[in-house]
């Protein structure tokens, strides 16, 4: 359940971008399948982590990001919800991970 640590890190990082007197209405997070973060666990942990902060009662929106691989051999992209490090076009393993590792705060709505 490291999602509580992740939720606390979201609050710590996001809080620096909120001006005095502002309240956060929603926060949009992108989590890649290779990040090891479970969407439901993060949603469960966030209210606890945000208690007593400007994020309290804000809406957490978690967007899952699929794994996107670039094949160095056939130069095609493979998109997958599963973690299989293999080009699905030519079945080569010489691939570069383009997306899927991230845990990003993409945007916040404040008032």
């Amino acid at each position, binding site marked *: 359940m*490291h999602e509580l640590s*992740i939720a606390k890190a*979201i609050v710590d990082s996001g809080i620096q971008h909120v001006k005095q007197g502002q309240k956060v209405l929603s926060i949009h997070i992108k989590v890649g399948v290779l990040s*090891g973060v479970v969407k439901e666990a993060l949603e469960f942990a966030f209210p606890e982590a945000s208690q007593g902060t400007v994020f309290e009662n804000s809406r957490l929106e978690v967007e899952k990001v699929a794994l996107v691989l670039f094949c160095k051999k056939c130069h095609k992209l493979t998109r997958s919800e599963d*973690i299989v490090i293999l080009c699905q076009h030519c079945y080569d393993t010489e691939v570069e991970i383009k997306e899927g590792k991230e*845990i990003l705060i993409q*945007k916040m*709505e404040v008032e």
Partner: protein
Amino acid sequence: MCGDCGCEVANADHFKQTIHLEIDVLKKNNHIAHQNHHWFHDHGVTAINLMSSPGSGKTALLERTSREFQESAFSILVGDQQTDNDATRLQLSGARVRQITTHSSCHLDASMIEKELDFIKEKLLIIENVGNLVCPSAFDLGESKKVALLSTTEGEDKPEKYPVLFHKADLIIITKSDLIPYLDWDETKCLDSIHKVNPKARVIKLSSKTGEGMKLWYDFLRECLCV
């Protein structure tokens, strides 16, 4: 009336605003990990992060390594949620070890290692992470190499079930090879599972009990020390 939302508060300043950020949530941990990495480099320390499920044989591997590995003395930082049982075991085998008790946390993070840098005197540091196949993989510590352990008793398909940790490993050690004759464990299936999530992983198989394959682990440590 307020011009933003029509509420009764005159000249209220509560209009909604969207702030676009693209901030890495683990930026703080990664920053400390980066500092740790520089500290290791500046002090000539090779740091290895051992990760696996509980009971896969991390402590047993380090006990035998403490007794047998002659090329370099090493310090051990061992993480557990509670107790210093592992540190006590390792001290009995002659290792210089410090326990990090993480309490509610299911993983070590970079700040926990940063607090223990003064303890590290040897050229090799082995970090025994909290036994957990999910959480430790998200937190870089500043290590030079990540090593994942997978015991034969856990079955062959753990890498596919817990892909993130095995994907990130530089070395995957299959432990408890002495038990293979008593298990329905299929080495080919296990290697297939590993290579699906980490096609380039270096894999070794060993038994900390009988000593089979330990040489391959020591070879890896020697290579890490030479870099």
